[in-house]
Structure formats: C-alpha cells, structure tokens
C-alpha cells in the first residue's frame, strides 16, 4: 500500500510542469535545500554526534569524530 502511494505520488510529479522561465525563485540560493553543503555537513556532524539517531541527510563521510 505504501509502495503504491509512493508510486502514485511519483506519477503525479510527471503532471507538474514549472517552465524554465518561471524557475527564478526556485533557482535562488534561498530556495536550495542545502544552500551551503560544507557548512551544513559540519553542523550536522556536530549535532549527529550528540544524538542517538542518524540519517535523512547524506551517507558520505569518514572517521568517527565522536568524542
């Protein structure tokens, strides 16, 4: 059921068309999900090491750095 819902949503996305000329706001830095990836990754690294959970951001990385 969940899989069907996800597929239906994905299919719905094909109906959406935002023309290139209308994407000026979407292309602006303030509308990016990760505007500054390095700063975001460092902040997430600091927070992840203080919490018992992980994920939803990215899976790359190296080392523990978990003191």
């Amino acid at each position, binding site marked *: 059921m969940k899989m069907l819902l996800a597929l239906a949503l*994905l299919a719905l*996305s*094909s109906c*959406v*068309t*935002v023309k*290139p000329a*209308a*994407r*000026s*706001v*979407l292309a*602006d*830095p*303030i*509308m*990016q*999900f990760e*505007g*500054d990836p*390095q*700063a975001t990754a*460092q*902040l997430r*690294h*600091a*927070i992840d*090491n*203080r*919490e*018992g*959970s*992980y*994920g*939803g*951001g*990215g*899976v*790359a*990385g*190296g*080392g*523990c*750095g978990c*003191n």
Partner: protein
Amino acid sequence: MRLQLTTRRLFCFASVGAFLALAFASREASAQVVEVDTAHTFYHEAPTRSNMTVYTPGVSAQATPSEWITVRGGYEADIVSGASVATKAGKAYQSVNPGADVITTASVRDLRHSPTGGLTLRKGDVAYTAQYTFGAENDYRSHNIFIGAKTDAYGHNTQLEISYARNFDLVCDRVQATSDTAPRFRALENSTGCFANTDPLRTRHALAIDGFQASWTQAWTSVFATQLAYTAQLLDGFQSNPYRSVIVAQGLKAQEHHPDQRARQALAFRMNFYLRPIKVAFRLTGRLYRDTWDVTSGTGELEAERYLFENFRVTARGRFYKQSGALFWSDDYTGGDLPLGPKGQYFTGDRELSPFWSLGLGIRAAYTIRPEPKFDGGRPRLLGFLESAKVGASFDILQFSYDEYTLAGRPIENARAYIVGLTAGALF
C-alpha cells in the same frame, strides 16, 4: 606505519596533483569552473562534570573542466579538547554508597584528519558520483567509499538520487584477558600506541558501515518544492566508547558494552515555500528515525530566509528533537544476577542512548560579492580574477534535557551547546 604514511602521502600528492592539473586545464577551457570553499565550525559545551570544545576546519575545491566532468577534493579536521565522563554510575549505586564520588572524568585531546577526493561524470540528465574519504584519529581509522547517481526528469522538475556508502573502520581498544567476559572488561586508558603495532596491550576492532539513501526532489510550482529522503544504515562491529566504564555491581566497573549489530532507518520530508508578499523563503523539515536498538526519534526544523538587501541574506532557524532510550538503556546497571552480574547483557554510559529532547535556535547571515558589470562588454571580475566571492557566519544554541541520565543520581545541568560557523568561498 612507514608504509601507511607513504601510501597516505602518495594518495595526498596524487589527489592534489590531479586536482591542480584539472583546475589549470579548466582555466584554459572555460572561465567559470573552479570553486573553492572553506568552512570552520566551533562547538563548545560544558555540562556537569565535563566539557568539550571541538574546532572543525574544512576546505574543499571543485573544478569542472568540461560539462561532463567535475573533480573535487577537500580536507577536514576535528580538533578536540576537553574532559569527558570516564566512569558512569546511577542513582541506585549512589544510594547505597552515600558520599562516595564514583564519577570520574578523563581529559580528551584528539585530532581527526579527513582528506577526501572524488569526481562526478555527467551524461545527459544523469550524473554519477564517486568519492573516497579517509579518516584518521589517534584511536580510529576510517576508509569511506561513496557512489551515487542522480537524474533529472520531467523537464528538470524532478530529481531522483540514490547513493551507497561503505565504511571500513578500525577502533582501538585494550587487549582483554581471554578468560574475561564483558562485565570484567577494562576500559582503554589512553590512545598511546593504538596504531603503532608496538604495544602488546592494544588491539583493533573492525566496524563495517553500509549506508544507503534514496531521495526525490520535486518542484511543484514556481515557489514550492519538496524533498523526500530515506536513509538506511547497517553497522556491524565494535560500537562502544572504549574509554568509558560503567559501574555494574558493588565495587565493580566494566568497559561499556554495546551490541555489535545495529540497523538504522530514517525518513525525512522537507518543503521549501517562498512567500512572495513578505519575500521570505520557509523551509520545513520533519524526520522520523528508528533503529534495532529501539531508539526512535522525531525531528522538526523550521527555517526562514530572506534578503535584507541585494546579495545579503539572513536565516533564522529553530529545531526540536526528541528520542526514546535504547532497549538496554538504564541509568543504573547494578542489582543484576548474583554475585556481581550487571542488570542486562549490554550496558552503556552514553547519554546519547538515553531518552532526551533538545531545542535548538540559530541565525545565519551570508553575503555574496559580485563584480560590477562592465559596459565595454568584457567579463566582470573581482580583483581581476574572481567571478564572485561569498562569506557567511552562523550561531546556534542547543539545549538538551535528559529525562533519566544522571551522574550518580545528579542530573546533568547546563547541558547547552554553542555552535559558531564561519564560511568563505570563491568562484574563479
């Protein structure tokens, strides 16, 4: 050790050489293809009986010599100093030993180096990325391989991305007596000789980490976009803090002991919405997390960002996080099987495995410097060679509230973290 250093240097020189060659080649091919960024984060907290300061400097560079390839390299470090809890006891133990100060702390001084290098190849609307990251600390070694693929669909309104990462890690530990079991294991005293192969009392445990992520980013209207991301991670190997001990019975402390396997899953949903009348972009994030240690958590984040004036934007953000404790979490492990058995198979002194919530508030400012346009038709440049430059600064406060974790019955006070971030970047 010499072989290890030589290999690392070779990797380092090869990476830098390859990057510089591509960067200079790209200068010939196109004028807007090299980007250099640096980020610095300062983290400080000083809760009851401990304190921790971490400075994380990082630099990254990427060059796109041609439309079909981007090559990148970077370096990051963690410079850690402070004092952490070395022996943890709970309130039940303290109640039968009134006045005894069983909580001990140990000074922590560590340096993590983490160089990285990778490339992205593009063909049509699909981009393939491969990256390698090395991590080295006095007591930890990490090799991370990352591969990912991303595609644009439906007129670039949809982005689908999948990625996989594998860590081959090694954790230093103390050699334990072969006849001992976990409740008799002793904690690692310090990191001396951990990777030198000269100390017979040092050993290394493997930790393998497999990570998978899939994400779907969708532009729905000219001012509204969403992102759904699913992450799964499997950990197999030593996951305890080798330095930390837990009081497990009267007069007996043991190195903390976590299960070797852990499977983690997270589902995050983000949406960006630009409210034209007030010219503010709102970012809302919700995340649900669950793992096989029975830690469940929920995270909610809200960010509001707008331009105060041209090229200068400010962000205000708030974050709420709440988690349950691990299945084997207890503030006090004494009172198990006689004569000196702990309560349960596993025991931990890790406050991150206890139930707690946290609240975070932060601000960020970023300024992009662009050259004045030239009226003679020439390409405008800053200082004669920069396409643009940017600087940024941020400040965040995180307040933690621990429901059950105590230091021998004493609740953690002043559990507050301060995070300062500074960034700068330039486009050549």
